[in-house]
Every structure is written in structure tokens, then in C-alpha cells.
């Protein structure tokens, strides 16, 4: 029982950055944009959050800087894919390359190529509401984890219950119809990118300001790509995205514990477990996937 509680606690920690990033990507894709800038956005946000927190001595300013970085990179994606109508794959990968390169370059300027990752004096601490009880390890989480869980219903509400959400989905499904109904397609897509970018910024901040309290240039390690898979896995619905993130986090936490306990299985099999299950479920459920109809399509106004 004790081990199970610890396992679930680990699940939440591992899921948090992926969940935040995947929620951001969900909002963006529902507006018809595939943002492959996600991986670089996570890294540059983690970096800017770390630097600002270190220079200002305020974790909250760092958090703000990370969110702002996410928003700005989202707007850049908007400029490339909405205003210039570039191919979204190319624009997104370009942003990832740019943001990753920028983070490494600035890191080198500021920290002189140190091979020991610089650490913060103090990072965000964990809440321990049920400390001392059997459930303690499960609830020993960073505030951003609780925020991420709260953002799941909020994102769902935003997308399905608000006028902005309706416009956003209309733009992602049928921009022509939305345009005729008087919706400014470009403006809605820009807003979706900014909002989704803010969530990616939170994900980056979680890595550098909470989970590790330090910055290392390779610290994102593909979490952005996993988030993209989770959006498909979750059929562009926040609650299902949460399910996917928790499943992935659970399998990851489980395989680490199996390795630690010395279970007699090749470690490669354990490491592959989360990815194998993700692929399996995608293969089983992905066939009747209803992706946003206008995804990847730049909107050209007829007659314009």
C-alpha cells in the first residue's frame, strides 16, 4: 500500500509537465494549428524562468518570465503560420530549433559553459497537506501540479462552454464558415497560440523552478513530443488528455520502481513500456479519431 501511494505520487510528478504542455497544445490544435515549436518552447521557458528567478531572487517573477516566453513563442508561431501562412510543420520545427539554440547560446553567455548545472538558492517547495498520514506521499506535490489538474476542467470549460471556445473550435473546424459568421480567424488563432504557449511556459517553469530547481540544457528530453502524442491520444479533449498523461506518468513511475526493486526483466523492456503502451492505445483508438478539420491548413479568405 505504501509503495502504491508512493507510485501514484511519482505518477503525478512525472505527468505534470507533460499534462501542462499537452493542454496548451490541445487549445492550439483545436484552433487548427499544429505547434511543433512545443519542445523548444518548453526549453526556452524553463531557461528564461530560471534566469529571471536567479537574477531577481523571485520565483514568481521567474514563473512570469517563463509564461511570457511561452506566449511570445506562440505569437511567433502565429506570425509564421497565420500571417505568413507557412507550412506548420516547418514553422514549428523551426521554432523548436531556434528556441533550443537560443537557450543554449544564452546559457553559455551567462554561465560560461559550466558543466555543473547552475542551481537556484531555493526552488518552489512541495505542499504537504497530509504529511504524516499514509496518503502523505501522494499529496506531497508542487503547487503547479495542483494548478495543472485544475486547468483540465478549466480548459474543457473554456473550449466547450464559452463564446471564445466556440469561436476557437469553429476556426479549427471550418474557418470559412466562422469567417462568414463574422469571426476574425487570424485573431482567434493568435489568441489560441498565446494561451497555449502560456501553458507550455508553465510546463517549462515546472521543470526548472519546481521539479529540479536547476537548469540543464537537455532537461526537456522529448517531453514536448510526448505531449503532442497525448493530444492525439486524448482526442483533443482535456479530460482524455489528462487520462493519457496520467497513464504515461504511471507507467514511467512504475518502470522506475521495477528497475529500482531489481525486477528480473531487461531494463530496456521496462524503459520501453510507457512508449509501447502509448503506441498500442493510439493504434487501437486512433482509427476513428476526429481531429480538427482545419488542422494544418492556413486560412485563405475567398476572393482575397
Amino acid at each position, binding site marked *: 500500500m505504501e*509503495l502504491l501511494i*508512493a*507510485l501514484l505520487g*511519482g505518477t503525478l*510528478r*512525472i505527468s505534470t*509537465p507533460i499534462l501542462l504542455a499537452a493542454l496548451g497544445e490541445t487549445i492550439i490544435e483545436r484552433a487548427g494549428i499544429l505547434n511543433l515549436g512545443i519542445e523548444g518552447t518548453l526549453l526556452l521557458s524553463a531557461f528564461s524562468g530560471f534566469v529571471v528567478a536567479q537574477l531577481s531572487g523571485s520565483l514568481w517573477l521567474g514563473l512570469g518570465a517563463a509564461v511570457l516566453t511561452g506566449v511570445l513563442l506562440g505569437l511567433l508561431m502565429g506570425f509564421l503560420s497565420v500571417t505568413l501562412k507557412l507550412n506548420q510543420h516547418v514553422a514549428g520545427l523551426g521554432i523548436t530549433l531556434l528556441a533550443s539554440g537560443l537557450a*543554449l547560446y544564452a*546559457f*553559455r553567455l551567462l554561465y560560461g*559553459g*559550466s*558543466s*555543473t*548545472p547552475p*542551481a537556484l538558492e531555493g526552488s518552489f517547495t512541495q505542499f504537504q497537506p497530509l504529511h504524516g498520514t499514509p496518503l502523505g*506521499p501522494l499529496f506531497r506535490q508542487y503547487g503547479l501540479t495542483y494548478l495543472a489538474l485544475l486547468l483540465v476542467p478549466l480548459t474543457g470549460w473554456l473550449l466547450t462552454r464559452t463564446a471564445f471556445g466556440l469561436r476557437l473550435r469553429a476556426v479549427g473546424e471550418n474557418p470559412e464558415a466562422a469567417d462568414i459568421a463574422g469571426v476574425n480567424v487570424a485573431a482567434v488563432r493568435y489568441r489560441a497560440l498565446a494561451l497555449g504557449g502560456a501553458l507550455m511556459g508553465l510546463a517549462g517553469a515546472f*521543470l526548472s523552478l519546481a*521539479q*529540479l*530547481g*536547476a537548469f*540543464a*540544457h*537537455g*532537461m526537456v*528530453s522529448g517531453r514536448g513530443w510526448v505531449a503532442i502524442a497525448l493530444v492525439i491520444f486524448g482526442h483533443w479533449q482535456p479530460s482524455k488528455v489528462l487520462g493519457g498523461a496520467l497513464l504515461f506518468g504511471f507507467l*514511467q*513511475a512504475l518502470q*522506475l*520502481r521495477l*528497475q*529500482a*526493486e*531489481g525486477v528480473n526483466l531487461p*531494463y*530496456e523492456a521496462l*524503459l520501453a513500456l510507457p512508449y509501447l503502451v502509448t503506441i498500442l492505445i493510439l493504434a487501437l483508438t486512433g482509427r476513428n479519431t476526429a481531429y480538427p478539420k482545419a488542422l494544418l491548413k492556413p486560412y485563405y479568405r475567398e476572393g482575397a
Partner: protein
Amino acid sequence: MPKRCLSALILLLALGLAHAQPLKVFGAFATAIEEPWDGVIHTALLNEEAAGRIAYEFVDDIGYAGDMERILRDVAEEEAPAVVFGDAFGNEEAVRRVAGDYPDIAFVFGSGLSPSEPNLSVFDNWIHEPAYLSGLIAGSVSQSGVIGVVAGNPVPEVNRIVNAFKVGATEANADARVLVTFINSWFDPPAAKESALAQIDAGADVLFAERFGVIEAAQENGLLAFGNMSDQNSLAPETVVTGPVWDMAPTVDYVLSQVEGGTYTALDLKDFSMMAKGGASLAPFHGFSKTLPPELIERVQTRQDEIKNGLYRVPILEEAP
């Protein structure tokens, strides 16, 4: 007369300059220099540059997608350095192809394979000796008898560090259980931290951080940890006891002296990364020199002297632990 004086002076100056002309050295690294392995090589070269012995330039983050060969060829053609240092892992064939085409340049690369005549020398981080000493301490200070090791990938150079650490731990405590987790990445500190937390849940009270991220987990839980590659005490002075340290200075110094003397030849430079020649060491104990039991420090000191004097050989075990 003054004219002759002047020309003599110019001649002397020219001779002096020719003599002081630093060797042209190039660094070619597959990863960013922030990655600790390549960082160790880079640091040693920077120190030689600061000492005025070499003129140093480098390219890093070259990756494993075929750019290494192009970059090495460009450098050989346009810069014609005397020596190229770098890491060949994952680019072994490319490095060897280029080295074969430029026999007048000394190629000195980190590699798990053998040297190649006439000009390709290999080195590696042979820090299993201080890893063994770290294990000796870890086995002695662990109360639970469960020790966690979080490592990158099970390649021979990592395996021999982890295995040597295990040998030390079980020598200190025959009943010690050593948990080993691989994160399958060289650089994913959040995953390494989570692995360490899983080991703590499984009872580990001392952790060996082959990778970054583990020390943070130990610190958060008030446990002891061992660093790797460099002296990492400053990361968490109350947490990091010591750890194996790799220093490329002896290797670099030896290669430069051979090139300067015109006696360079392809070699396996392994010994220069081991304790006897100062290429490997145990990080200073810092505050722990007062808190560790004096008899333990003495035991480690004795073993260290035996290793350095060639009286004790730490086993080299390269199979996955």
C-alpha cells in the same frame, strides 16, 4: 652598427616568436560542452590555452548524424591544427576515416575502441578506481544497507564505474544491496531525480549520482549522495560526500609534450586517466572530513595509496550490472 644591432634584434625576436608560437589545437565534440564528459576535455584544453601553450578553437554539439566527418575535414584542410581532441563514440568510423587521410595531424579521441596507426590515439574516462573508493565509503555510511545508483546508459564505460562502485560497497558491507537504475539518456535530470526518488522509496539511504538530478533527490530527503565526473560538493555541501573525478590534464599534457617533441605516436592513453597519473581522483571530502569516521577515512586513504602504488588493482567489469 645600429643597423646591424636592429637586424640582430629582429632576428632574435623572430626566433623567440617562432619558439613561443603555441600549438594549434582543435576540439570536436559530439555533445554540447555543458555535457560533463566533453566538458572535462574542454576544461583541460582551456587551461592549456590560458597557460599560453596552445591556440585553441572548438566546435561542439556536432551530434551523430554525419556532421563530424565534414567538420573534421574542413578543420584539417583550412586550419591544419597540430592536434584534434574530441569524442569518437557514435562517430568512430568517421573519425578514423578522416584521421587516416591526414597522417600529419594528431587525432586524440575518446573512444571505446583501440588506437589506429599512425596518428589516432584513444582515451576514455577510466575513473573506476575512485568509483570503487566511493563505493567503499557508501557501503560504510549506509544505515539501511540499500544503496541506489542512477546511471545513464549501460555502455562499458558506465558499467565499469557502476560495477567498481558496487565492488567497493559490498567490500564495506557484504550484505549491502545496490539498486541500479538506467534512465536511457545522458541528460535528463528530471528523470534521474525521479529514479532516485523511486530508489529512496525502495529503501535506499545513500545514492550515487552517475548523472545529474540525483543529488537534488538526496538533498530533499536529507540523505547522502556521491557525485561523478567533477567535484560536485558545491551543489549541496551537506549532501555530497565525495565522488569520482575525471581530469584530462595529464592526457592533454602528455599528448602536447609528444607533439612538441616530434615523438607523437598512436597510443591507448588509458593510464593517463587513472589515479596513478592523476587523471582520476576522489573528490575532496570538504565538510565531511570532520563528520566521516576517522577509521573509514584512514581505510580509504590506505586503499588509495595501494591503488596509486600499483599494489591494488580495482577490477574492470564492463558487463551490464
